[in-house]
């Protein structure tokens, strides 16, 4: 979602601390680095324990890995520990998948290419800037397109990977998914990029909210004792459950082992801090190491007593969960509400002051920004754009339905303003009950141009949750606890009763209690499915027949739509079955143990994620991309072919085959609509043909487009939403619960657009789809933002886990206090109409300058001034210069 850092000097209040600046400077120079420590010790132990009970075997391997990680502390840090020894470190997990980081010549890689599990990689490009190691150099080998590993470690990694060949979730899962009838078709679906990726072995967890409660409440020793006691309590008892009742003994044993492993990891860091304290000469730094040592030494065993200890513990828990599995989108939830009791206590007792807290929060931001996720390039580059989506939610309502925002959250906003970094991103759970001061602070943050916070609708989310989780007894009180998982996934959470120090009060803090979401069926490209419909199942890029011919003439709009739904349903059903198997293999051998123990009700029930130990398991969903291009295309087909008969279907298909007379995006190396170039009539096409293409293309472009509050198109959107959100519930996850709709694009609109032909809405081959799910296609929303919002809210957003709408605003439109209030009004208006999500890109001078150099990235940038609106790219350079200068001055 976010690009690399940009600094926006104008509306920032205050600067980040010097300490943060120094550490941030290191980040800017850091390369994404991979090493073998974790996979080495994990594999070594795992293979030693052949035949052990699965959960225990995994737990032993995890414990071995955690307790062997080399502790590294960087001078100046106050919050310490990271996933590996490196500043931005990660590692491979060959027990999940090993194909993608092999060299291209390697047989494993070739095999995974064939089954389409790496096809996304070929179409995803990492930005070559920042910390990405896109090419090997010196002693560093580039793997998975973005990560650097020492050549000294590479052969061992490959050897480790080979040990897992045939045993990884990827391989084993594949063996069994081949048993699904029509499996060949699934491979074709993946290869053609009708679907973007599988999650069972790439990112089996994530898009969920973590729960920090249990270690905060009991401490590690407390939890180990609970596990031990429970072991004695349940040993030998089935408790009425003949299937998995007995597993509780092994599960508690597993829990105990992993706790010991993480505890050992923390103690290694404590030891390192002590060692550094000894050899340090600078008195201040010495003191800092000492404090770090004391914090770690304490939280390795006991519940935290102070804000600093709690913050450190929460960070440690977060990276422990991140290390346990391949996981992207492990969100912090409402950390500000979790830590508030500690903060408030410390403040009251004079143990801490606000400025210290802000600095700690800045440092925490930096820590999260350094989090890398080692997954395949297609996943990391194509889907995630390198982001790891550690989302921090603020606001919402509390257990009793009141405004839950607090002063610590205000400080988190302040830290986000002073230290603009991609992580953690901020999500404001908007409710009419929220305090104006809080909301306006959030608007201030939006104005700095970082894009956070995004705004999500509290009530709409609650409605969705109550419906989806009703079979698991979700009630209103529980529904209020929700937060955003991943970037935009409404996730079920619960209230946990926290007590701290000797404070008699019980604080109800929210935390995640649900399984990963956005697992199930990933990113089905709707425009690509439409292409298959038009061409009887044949992928126009590869000429491969992906789906069985439908053999229909498509003589009416209804027939067309019915065929689309058929194809879509077939694709979904096949993907559900295959993904269910992959996830099933995952849960048999690679179940989460640490993450499980953190979430209710695993610890009390004695069952982990794989045995429905979580409170909410109905989390699997079906994701789509390119919704708006589909809708616009359907509108164009309806108007041009069926209603007004301005062209025949064959003519349209012929135009699409020829990219409406344009060269391919690939051949000109640009995927932006602005750059597309027409074929000259010397290149094998006649003048007559070119003219015909032009005519057709013009009609396609002129057909009604979404975002203008036009019934013709909006009704198509509404019908689609009603049908899609309804049909999801016909499919079941491996956990026996119905699926639901998820509508966000992350970055798939780029990668999937790249392999899709021209579409009937006038979009050209290879170019990017409209982003999000409800953003208008660039340049087509001509009736202003209110009309766009009206179109966007033409259907019930609560039937889907999410919807996504990105807005670009010029800073002049929201300048000053009145500008802030107006932006808030706009947000309110959209939320009141039932819109679920809004995100703002505020474009300022830096961006305008960039837009001058790279107008292809700013096709849809509107410069709004009193009097009229103009597309930036249509303003001549000299005026652009003037505008840039004006923007700096701040007045129009």
């Amino acid at each position, binding site marked *: 979602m976010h690009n690399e850092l940009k600094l926006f000097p104008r509306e920032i209040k205050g600067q980040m601390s010097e300490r943060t600046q120094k550490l941030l400077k290191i980040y800017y120079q850091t390369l*994404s680095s991979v090493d073998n420590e974790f996979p080495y010790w994990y594999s070594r132990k795992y293979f030693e324990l052949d035949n052990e009970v699965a959960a225990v075997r995994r737990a032993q391997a995890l414990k071995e890995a955690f307790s062997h990680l080399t502790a590294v502390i960087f001078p100046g840090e106050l919050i310490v520990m990271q996933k590996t020894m490196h500043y931005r470190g990660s590692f491979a997990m060959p027990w999940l998948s090993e194909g993608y980081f092999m060299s291209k010549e390697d047989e494993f890689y070739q095999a995974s290419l064939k089954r389409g599990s790496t096809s996304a990689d070929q179409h995803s490009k990492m930005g070559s800037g920042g910390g990405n190691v896109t090419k090997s150099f*010196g002693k560093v080998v580039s793997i998975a397109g973005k990560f650097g590993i020492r050549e*000294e470690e590479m052969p061992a990694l490959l050897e480790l990977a080979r040990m897992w060949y045939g045993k990884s979730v990827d391989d084993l899962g594949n063996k069994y998914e081949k048993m699904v009838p029509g499996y060949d078709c699934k491979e074709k679906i993946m290869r053609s990029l009708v679907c973007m990726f599988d999650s069972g072995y790439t990112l089996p967890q994530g898009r969920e909210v973590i729960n920090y409660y249990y270690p905060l409440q009991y401490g590690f020793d407390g939890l180990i004792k609970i596990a031990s006691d429970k072991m004695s309590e349940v040993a030998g008892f089935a408790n009425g459950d003949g299937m998995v009742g007995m597993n509780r003994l092994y599960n508690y044993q597993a829990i105990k082992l992993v706790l010991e492993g993480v505890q050992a990891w923390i103690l*290694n860091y404590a030891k390192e801090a002590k060692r550094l304290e000894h050899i340090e000469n600078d008195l201040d730094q010495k003191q800092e190491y000492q404090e770090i040592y004391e914090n770690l030494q304490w939280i390795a065993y006991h519940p935290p007593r102070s804000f600093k200890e709690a913050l450190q513990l929460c960070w440690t828990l977060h990276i422990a969960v991140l290390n346990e599995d391949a996981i992207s989108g492990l969100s912090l939830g409402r950390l500000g509400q979790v830590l508030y009791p500690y903060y408030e206590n410390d403040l009251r007792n004079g143990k801490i002051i606000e400025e210290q807290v802000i600095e700690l929060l800045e440092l925490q931001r930096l820590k999260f920004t350094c989090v890398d996720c080692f997954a395949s390039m297609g996943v990391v580059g194509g889907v995630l754009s390198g982001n790891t989506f550690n989302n921090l939610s603020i606001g919402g309502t509390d257990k009793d339905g009141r405004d839950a925002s607090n002063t610590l959250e205000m400080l988190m906003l302040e830290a986000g303003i002073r230290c603009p970094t991609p992580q953690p991103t901020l999500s404001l759970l908007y409710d009419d009950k929220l305090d104006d001061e809080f909301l306006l602070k959030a608007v201030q943050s939006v104005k700095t141009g970082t894009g956070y916070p995004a705004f999500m609708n509290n009530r709409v989310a609650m409605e969705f949750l109550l419906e989806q989780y009703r079979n698991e007894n979700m009630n209103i009180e529980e529904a209020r606890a929700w937060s955003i998982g991943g970037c935009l996934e409404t996730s079920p959470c619960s209230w946990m009763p926290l007590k701290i120090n000797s404070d008699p009060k019980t604080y109800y803090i929210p935390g995640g209690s649900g399984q990963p979401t956005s697992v199930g069926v990933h990113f089905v490209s709707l425009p690509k499915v439409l292409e298959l419909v038009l061409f009887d199942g044949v992928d126009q890029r590869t000429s491969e027949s992906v789906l069985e011919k439908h053999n229909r003439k498509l003589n009416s709009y209804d027939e067309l739509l019915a065929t689309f739904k058929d194809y879509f349903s077939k694709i979904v059903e096949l993907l559900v079955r295959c993904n269910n198997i992959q996830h099933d293999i995952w849960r048999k051998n690679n179940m989460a143990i640490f993450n499980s123990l953190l979430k209710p009700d695993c610890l009390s029930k004695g069952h982990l994620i794989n045995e429905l130990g979580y409170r909410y398991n109905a989390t699997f969903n079906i994701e789509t991309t390119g919704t708006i291009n589909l809708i616009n295309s359907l509108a164009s087909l309806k108007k041009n072919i069926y209603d007004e008969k301005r062209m025949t279907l064959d003519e349209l298909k012929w135009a699409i085959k020829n990219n409406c007379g344009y060269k391919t995006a690939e051949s000109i190396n640009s995927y932006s609509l602005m750059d597309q170039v027409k074929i000259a009539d010397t290149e094998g096409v006649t003048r007559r043909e070119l003219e015909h293409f032009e005519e057709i293309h013009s009609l396609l472009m002129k057909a009604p487009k979404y975002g203008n509050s036009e019934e013709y198109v909006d009704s198509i959107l509404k019908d689609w939403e009603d049908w899609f959100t309804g049909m999801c519930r016909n499919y079941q996850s491996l956990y026996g619960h119905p699926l639901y709709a998820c509508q966000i694009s992350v970055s798939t609109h780029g990668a999937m657009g790249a392999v899709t032909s021209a579409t009937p809405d006038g979009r050209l081959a290879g170019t990017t789809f409209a982003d999000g799910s409800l953003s208008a296609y660039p340049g087509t929303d001509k009736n202003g933002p209110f009309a766009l919002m009206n179109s966007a809210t033409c259907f019930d957003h609560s039937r889907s886990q999410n919807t996504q709408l990105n807005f670009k605003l010029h800073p002049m439109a929201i300048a000053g206090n009145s500008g802030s209030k107006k932006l808030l009004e706009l947000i309110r208006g959209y939320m009141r109409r039932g819109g679920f999500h809004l995100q703002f890109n505020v474009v300022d001078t830096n961006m305008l300058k960039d837009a001058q150099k790279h107008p292809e990235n700013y096709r849809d940038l509107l410069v709004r001034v009193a009097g009229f609106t103009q597309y930036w790219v249509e303003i001549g350079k000299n005026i652009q210069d003037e505008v840039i200068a004006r923007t700096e001055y701040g007045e129009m």
Partner: protein
Amino acid sequence: MKNKTQYHYRDTLNYAPVDVVKGIDLITKSLVKADDLAPPEYELLPKCKFCKHFSSGANSNYKGSCLGFAKPFLAYPDMIAKTCSSYIKNEHE
């Protein structure tokens, strides 16, 4: 333990690896290159290549075996052994 030999920074104890090519010298606090030589008195970082139990591979500079636990397993010279309970420094160093 003082050594007259000079090691690369990445083989020394008081080096915090920022990434695969550079890190921080924890004594001077400066940013240094992983493959540069550290001052002579810098302490050695336990690594498999310095360990008694490490047996180098026949065909590869970068792979070998670890005989330090009950069951032998893959090992590689550059692996850090700071947290390894079986690490014993090879006196030939």
